[in-house]
């Protein structure tokens, strides 16, 4: 394989991994605090729609991003209300959010723009354009390093760098701050947190709001960074793949980066090659498409280490009287 091909593959990996990574970290915050969230998909979709719609209306992608985050946080709060206050089943609430987002986005898009459930084409400042890092053009011809810097590192939308920066930030918040310690504790033993006089409800709400913000950025990246409009169901199951990545990563931020990059790399391979010849075997593209799921099942079955979810995950906290 040529060197440039590898660089292009990695470049594509980074683009595909970004929405996964953001959604995966979103799920990480929520699930570490004991709130299972299969509504990542729906939140991303709602954010993708509202960010594209508002970016079109205002002409500013940043206001669009804020609106997208707003939509996603609103759905997060709904999930919080159902699963924290009303102690509902978190899985059912998540599924409901996915359905709500899938239907509502198309309904509003049709009502506002009359383009059949899609938003109008964005251009100029209403989109996240790829940014060129300094010296990308001048260093382009340097062997090895030049193409890596020019093709791979430079030339992405700013949200890609934001997503990458979120990984150390998440690690720092979760493992090096008092807030992070309490957040993790509330997902393992909420009764202990409560005994210490800290509000379980507040902490869990904080976690779902952070989850909403990250999902919002992921959705906005899809519709205003990768694409220039919202189309129906445009998340195409990325929220569920992010959940798979979260399990694959065993609920840890750096592992999440690894898992999302691996899944992104599989996407890149699948888009670049139709069928892969490997040591005399022809590997059909469908196999590569299924690999993220196969890997997740393998992990869940306990073949490669064990993935143990937060102990209090999925269970509403009921204060003892």
């Amino acid at each position, binding site marked *: 394989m040529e060197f440039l*091909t590898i660089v*292009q593959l990695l470049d*594509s990996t980074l*683009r*595909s991994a970004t929405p996964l990574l953001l959604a995966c970290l979103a799920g990480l915050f929520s699930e570490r605090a004991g709130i299972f969230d299969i509504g990542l998909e729906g939140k991303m979709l709602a954010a993708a729609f509202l960010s594209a719609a508002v970016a079109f209306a205002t002409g500013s992608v940043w206001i669009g991003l804020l609106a997208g985050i707003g939509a996603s946080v609103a759905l997060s709060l709904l999930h919080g209300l159902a699963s924290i206050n009303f102690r509902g089943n978190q899985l059912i609430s998540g599924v409901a959010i996915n359905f709500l987002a899938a239907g509502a986005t198309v309904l509003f898009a049709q009502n506002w723009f009359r*383009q*059949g*459930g*899609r938003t109008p*084409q964005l251009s100029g400042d209403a989109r996240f354009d790829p940014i060129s890092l300094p010296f990308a053009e001048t260093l382009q011809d340097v062997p090895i390093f030049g193409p890596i810097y020019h093709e791979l590192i430079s030339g992405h939308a700013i949200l890609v760098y934001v997503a990458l920066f979120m990984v150390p930030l998440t690690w720092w918040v979760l493992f090096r701050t008092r807030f992070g310690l309490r957040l993790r504790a509330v997902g393992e033993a909420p009764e202990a947190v409560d005994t210490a006089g800290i509000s379980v409800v507040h902490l869990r709400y904080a976690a779902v709001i952070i989850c909403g913000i990250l999902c919002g950025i992921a959705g906005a990246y*899809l519709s205003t960074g*990768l*694409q*220039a*409009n919202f*189309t*129906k*169901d*445009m998340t*195409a*199951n990325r929220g569920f793949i992010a959940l798979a990545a979260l399990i694959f990563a065993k609920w840890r931020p750096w592992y999440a980066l690894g898992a999302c990059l691996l899944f992104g790399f599989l*996407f*890149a391979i699948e*888009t*670049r090659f*139709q069928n892969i010849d490997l040591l005399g075997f022809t590997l059909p*593209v*469908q196999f590569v*498409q299924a690999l993220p799921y196969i890997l997740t099942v393998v992990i869940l079955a306990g073949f490669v280490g064990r993935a143990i979810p937060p102990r209090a995950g999925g269970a509403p906290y009921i204060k003892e009287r």
Partner: protein
Amino acid sequence: MTLMQKFLGATATLALTAGAAFAEPALIYDLGGKFDKSFNEAAFNGAQQFAEATGGSFRDIELQSEAQREQALRRFAERGMNPVVTTGFSMSTPIANVAADYPDTKFVTIDGFVDPGAHPNVLSILFSEHEGSYLVGMMAAMASDSGTVGFIGGMDIPLIRRFACGYAQGVKAVNGDATVISNMTGTTPSAWNDPVKGSELTLAQISQGADVVYAAAGGTGIGVLQTAADQNILSVGVDSNQNYMQPGSVLTSMLKRVDVAVFESMSAGADLETGVKVLGLAEEGVGYSLDEYNASLVSDEMKAAVDAARASIISGDIAVHNYTTDDSCPVLDF
């Protein structure tokens, strides 16, 4: 009481038959959705034309899941809609299941195929997409500087391979050394609605040297056309005329006159002739689009070559291989 019931039953039957006499046509869109700017939207446009031309009205429904197919067919047939027009190859099995139960209703499947011997009240309308794709393939090869052109299909089904195969034959007819890169978006119906993946596939093809990309992928194609415009290469639209979507970047669109098929089926009403109808270049069922948005991209030379090829295909001098006849393509591997 029984007498009363009989009376009521008789009135109801009378009302139903009366309804059937002035039957409205119905239209069922496939999962891509009514406004996919492509295949289903063409069907909608045809129905709109029918409504405007005749002052009549029609009913339509957008399917949301596989399970609704048979249900929608039965609902429309029971309401006395006639004919019931459907889009998409996936409707053929549900129609075959339902057709015998409603012998007075005419069903139309566009892109699907139902055995006319077993189901005399079904019209299967097929298009010779390979012929239209051949023409746009020639244009793509003539417009390409790199000698490499791309094809992006939606769901990997024989119908889409027919597009790809015709396209590749057209490309090779102009430039025997040209490379055709072919990718399919996926193997599930969500492949019709993944513009993000369409973009990624386009970028992958560009990095392999493609400078014209043909998208036969429903809603996924919107991402393909967008990325082609962003990266300053040419694209080819499909089904509806998509030239306006990215002016100056869409070389042409392979037209599939689903609108004409729907219009004619609805206009015929209950007297619709059933059987199998194949619409090719000769019937103007397929073709390529030329309008103010792509006028600057299509040279006179290109137009002359394509029109000559069109005439040769109609007269039979050029035979374009149809992928679905033997599930293989002489110029392209899948």
